[in-house]
């Protein structure tokens, strides 16, 4: 299997400073994830896995170290360039779904496209297509608080996919939903991976992690 690296990190560290204490969340993290991989990052809570995920997702900046996404040095980008990276290269799925409240699922999925300047007509078509793909064709005009947790997470997946990103990042995607629905989510991930999507997922549940092809273990901010 030919391997094109999509994520490369070199000596990433993240230190949180308060007035009294310095907390090292990540220390010297270097790893590579290649195109088409399905990777699970595992570790106990407080291990730094979420921090790592946020840095990979360009939602946060490392204290030091280098991070290449698709060959682009993310650390050197301006705020606006980072916004474009988040918009076009990364699909982020949150544990808490993070849908806009009181807003229809369709409008939620269309949101990233409006920031990308996709024409309105096309936005709706594409959003409908992805909502259908995650099995929510009949929930398009429901607002996010009218549907179940599993359904909300599927809306979030559709939203993450709609810009056709280089990589899907999922932070404990099944952490807030019932087990049966969790399986449905994992089935979608497996299917997406088979279609060629690169997926990086955080979890602390071995049952969930087993769906991934590779597992990276983190403890106390270090890869083990």
């Amino acid at each position, binding site marked *: 299997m030919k391997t094109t690296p999509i994520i490369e990190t070199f000596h990433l560290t993240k230190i949180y400073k308060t007035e009294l204490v310095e907390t090292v969340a990540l220390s010297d993290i270097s790893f590579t994830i290649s195109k088409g991989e399905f990777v699970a990052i595992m570790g106990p809570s407080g291990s730094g896995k979420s921090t790592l995920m946020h840095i990979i997702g360009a939602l946060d900046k490392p204290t030091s170290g280098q991070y290449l996404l698709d060959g682009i040095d993310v650390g050197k980008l301006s*705020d606006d360039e980072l*916004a474009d990276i988040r918009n076009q290269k990364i699909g982020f799925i949150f544990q808490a779904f993070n849908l806009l409240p*009181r807003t229809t699922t369709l409008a939620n999925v269309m*949101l*990233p496209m409006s*920031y990308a300047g996709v024409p309105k007509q096309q936005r709706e078509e594409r959003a409908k297509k992805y909502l259908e793909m995650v099995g929510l064709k009949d929930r398009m005009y429901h607002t996010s608080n009218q549907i179940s947790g599993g359904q909300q997470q599927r809306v979030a997946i559709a939203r993450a996919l709609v810009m056709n990103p280089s990589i899907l990042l999922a932070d404990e995607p099944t952490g807030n939903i019932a087990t049966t629905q969790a399986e449905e989510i994992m089935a979608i991930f497996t299917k997406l991976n088979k279609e060629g999507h690169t997926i990086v997922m955080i979890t602390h549940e071995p049952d969930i992690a087993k769906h991934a092809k590779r597992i990276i273990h983190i403890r106390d901010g270090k890869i083990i």
Partner: protein
Amino acid sequence: MSYIELIIESLGTLKLNKMRTFLAILGIVIGIGSVIALLSLGQATQAMISSQIESLGSNLLTVNPGSTRQGNVAGGAGSKTTLTLDDAAAISGSTQITTIAKVSPELSRRTQVTTGGSNTNTQIVGVTADYLDVHKIGIATGNFITDRDVTQMTKVAVIGPQVATDLFGVGSTPVGQTIRISGKTFTIIGITESKGGTGFMNQDDIIFVPLTTAQKQLFGVTYLSSIALEAKNADLMTSAQDEVGYFLLTRHKISDPAQADFSIFSQADILNTATSATGTFTALLSGIAAISLLVGGIGIMNIMLVTVTERTREIGLRKALGAKKKVIITQFLIESIILTFTGGVIGILFGLIVSFIISKLINAPFIISPSSMLLAFAVSTGIGILFGWYPAKKASDLQPIEALRYE
């Protein structure tokens, strides 16, 4: 995202979050409305006070005779008998005097007045027809004293409403009836309108008779107690005072103004006092306006700060999905503008309605001041937009994950 799209998006967000939108608009409505109502009421009260002062006659000059002097003992002002009807006629007939419109010679005394069973002690004023205009007296019933009454020395009287009440009972209109002043019978030909005032200033407790009748038949004198002059307009008061002063000095053959046997008292002096009083009132009003603007502004600031800060997570999410800072700030600015303008317009209407109702209740004029309305609107919308923009800017400066974690 184009501006039109952003406006549509903002309107959508405002519509989806009805409660939040309603509360924000309510805050702005109360803020602007109360400022406008307070300002408008304050101005109405001020207008009411100044119109009451104006009604005393703003163009009025009074010439009083000087005080008598025996040795080093000075008598009261006006105790001299140096002013005569000829002086008054000379002033009104002179070509040298250009600033005076009307001249009203007056003789005033307090005396006992009786009718049938009742009596009262009141001010008797001998007047000519011009008194009416110079002192801005209105006639409620009947007529005022005419020049013919003065030349023919008729025994007619015009009484104030207080006298009518004292002598004839509440609500009476005793035109045509008679009263006795110093033992002489006078026919009542008119009743003046109520002017208000209390004590010595009570302009309703007064009886007017023809000047000549007062001089010859009632009091047996030839002098006047004062001459009231009406200047052509309020700006001419000072020059009118100088002109008349010089004229009378010449006429009375007095070369040293310090020795003048008369004094000229200007209504402007009263007006100055009154103006400084209304000035204090204006300052008070400005203070109230400033405080209500401040209070309204803080209210608006609070509601905007709270509603926008509460959306820090939403801003984090939008950033995570690829929104640029400028897009987020623009969206929140548009939302603030829509909110503050809607609230502002409703607030102005609300303020006007409230001040209209209150002005009707307290019987004050309803005054709309566009400048204060503009001020209230500008300050409130300015604050609304500033504090809609500021937390949005602060939130969009955060890393997306920090904004998302915001509690």
